[in-house]
């Protein structure tokens, strides 16, 4: 639908506002505690029943991804309408109805590279949060050198047979399906990779959670032993998976950096300047007593502001057709540094209060900061290490040459 006049767009706004007023449950307009985040899937649990209602209603309209095509269950909105929806959601402080690798990473790639049947089969369930996806990329021997992956995928005539191991598979133990990079040709590197989808309940799939230094287990080691996969579940062409993989990594880096790894750190956690004021104190003019820490917190706050202005600028430029290449690598690099600096400053400002692990005697939010500080160390590793992102910038953006 094309909007010739501002009036028509205004009509859409009123209609949207009315719908949201009627359909967004009251508790979905309050800040979201971590344990009420909705990831969807076959085994989805809803601590707050209204979050299921909210997901179902938004999913039905395709507004979990407003700009995806209607024919696959998406919202079918144009950019202006999507912006209006976003503004209206923000106006009532609505929670995101669904967190999903399907929405952020796999869906956009499938819409670009999948065939019509695959889109019809998988996209609607992503939008409605019925299927939870995980990403089978990294392997024990293929991290930064992702194209060195070894998981074998053999053509057995009427099906594929998969054998191998993935690692750092986010929430593989909770996911229903996996989008996976596999080797279909061992004689070449990048040109021997394919992109394939399968059910995590298939015989031969096993996911074992990995405990991190932060004590959490968001990642798994995932093993595949003689996993049979129907042939219509390979996306794109055989040996053509690397192109899809790279594109998907861009979606991943964008979605990671768009939020700056969560930026403000979730409910209840204050900024490093607040904790420093609280635990160190200020002089009569309001300056932090620790001048050195004050300078470093200022540096960080300026970086945060510069980062958010850069995201805004790049978004505006992209809309005006002045796109800068490989912004995802630039933002991913900066976002990782930013979030790690933030957490180092947070625990420094908290002092020993930021060095608790569990039990009584420490503030609940301070303990959360401690865990997040440890978790943040992965920010410069996951989704392309900072070093790999610098390589991408140097070579693809700046045009520097490889060693001869």
């Amino acid at each position, binding site marked *: 639908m094309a909007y010739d006049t501002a009036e028509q767009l205004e009509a859409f706004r009123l209609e949207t506002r009315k719908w949201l007023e009627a359909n967004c449950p009251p508790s979905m307009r309050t800040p979201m505690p971590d344990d009420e985040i909705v990831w969807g899937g076959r085994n989805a649990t809803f601590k707050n029943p209204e979050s299921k209602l909210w997901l179902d209603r938004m999913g039905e309209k395709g507004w979990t991804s407003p700009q995806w095509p209607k024919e696959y269950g998406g919202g079918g909105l144009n950019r202006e309408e999507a912006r209006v929806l976003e503004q209206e959601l923000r106006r009532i402080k609505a929670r995101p109805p669904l967190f999903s690798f399907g929405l952020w990473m796999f869906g956009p790639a499938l819409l670009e590279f999948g065939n019509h049947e695959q889109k019809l089969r998988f996209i609607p369930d992503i939008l409605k949060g019925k299927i939870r996806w995980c990403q089978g990329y990294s392997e024990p021997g293929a991290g930064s050198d992702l194209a060195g992956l070894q998981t074998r995928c053999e053509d057995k005539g009427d099906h594929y047979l998969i054998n191998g191991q993935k690692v750092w598979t986010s929430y593989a133990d909770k996911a229903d399906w996996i989008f996976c990079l596999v080797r279909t040709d061992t004689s070449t590197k990048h040109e021997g990779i394919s992109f394939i989808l399968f059910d995590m309940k298939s015989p031969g799939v096993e996911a074992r959670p990995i405990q991190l230094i932060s004590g959490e287990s968001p990642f798994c080691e995932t093993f595949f032993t003689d996993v049979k996969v129907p042939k219509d579940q390979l996306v794109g062409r055989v040996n053509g998976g690397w192109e899809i993989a790279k594109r998907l990594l861009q979606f991943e880096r964008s979605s990671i950096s768009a939020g700056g790894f969560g930026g403000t750190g979730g409910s209840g956690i204050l900024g490093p*300047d607040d904790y420093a004021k609280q635990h160190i104190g200020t002089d009569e003019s309001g300056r932090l007593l620790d001048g050195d820490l004050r*300078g470093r917190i200022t540096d960080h706050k300026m970086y945060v502001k510069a980062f958010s202005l850069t995201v805004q*600028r790049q978004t505006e430029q992209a809309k005006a057709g*002045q796109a800068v290449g490989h912004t995802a690598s*630039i933002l991913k690099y900066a976002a990782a540094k930013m979030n790690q600096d933030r957490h180092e400053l947070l625990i420094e400002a908290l002092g020993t209060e930021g060095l608790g692990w569990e039990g009584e005697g420490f503030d609940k939010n301070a303990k959360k900061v401690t865990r997040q500080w440890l978790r943040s160390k992965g920010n410069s590793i996951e989704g392309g290490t900072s070093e790999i992102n610098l390589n991408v*910038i140097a070579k693809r953006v700046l045009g520097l040459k490889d060693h001869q």
Partner: protein
Amino acid sequence: MSFILTEDQEMLRETAMAFAQGELPISHLRALRDSGANGDDPASRKKLAELGFFGVIIPDEPGGETFGLTGLGQILEAQGRTLAATPLMQTALIAASALQLGGTPAQKAEWLPKIAAGEATFALALDESAHFSPYAVATEAERDGKGFTLNGLKKYVPDGHYADVFIVAARTFGEAGDRHGISLFLVPRGAKGVTVEALKTVDSHGAAHISFDDVHVTDAALLGPADEGADILDPVLDRAAIGMAAEMLGSAQAAFDMTLDYLNNRKQFGQLIGSFQSLQHRAAKMFVELEMTRSCVAAALDAADAGKPDLAELASLAKAKAGELVHMVSNDCVQMHGGIGMTDAAEPGFYMKRARVQEALYGSASWHRDRYAKLNGF
């Protein structure tokens, strides 16, 4: 917030870039230096006037449209690329802003057309010590019945060695350090008691120490309200900091481009040095900082034009980020050029020398970080 230039601003930017590259390249600054001109360049001023660059923030008629500070920022960025020594910062930005914000109708009518036509140059005589500290004004302006008598010494006044008129910050009340009690005065260069000591500066742009010994001015010389000159000075200095940030962005971009070019041509060990990962990563980090600073400068320029309430915060952000950027890039430009970078025949040294002057004027990065923290309540 708008990060996209209007068509007119885009054209202005292109004109300014072409003019800087064509007429005011670094070889021009070198020639000015070698001839002893000390940044005083009447021939180039004439060309800038013909292009209309002095009047980009001055409307043809009161309340009329201009290119805005965003437009002027494009010109300053262009002159930053080639380190051009021009009076645009002091005259087209600072004086034009101060007069528009605080001038009487008579002052505006007298000076704004002359500024726009490039017929008068100005210099803000503010600092009295070696560090930027705008309220630390000790220069006295004593009421003498027929106006004011000024006594004091101003240090390192940019363009002070050739400007026709000085905007002098002097104290009419209170003590050095007080915001209240500062007044601004327009003092012609030729006024009795004004002594200009021209300075040879490291960046070859020149500057001057200016002393005022019993300099008498009439009430008509007062620019803005008596005692509350800071109400004019503060927004003018914010705009100056933003303009300088735009200039620094241009300098950093040019020094970076030059470095990248060298990395792509210089060979050692049979390899292009730009193929070594340690240098690639440093170049990539510089590029990330350039992108971030460009966003800050654009946002600050826009805030000035839109009259946003967070102007001071964005001015400090832009000046601090651009200062850190040009510091890092100018140093790495010398380092990555190796021995060549240490020679006077090459250009990296020019960028490093100018960078330190840019960093110091209108508040160093650490001055602006301190203010940013204060504005953020810690």
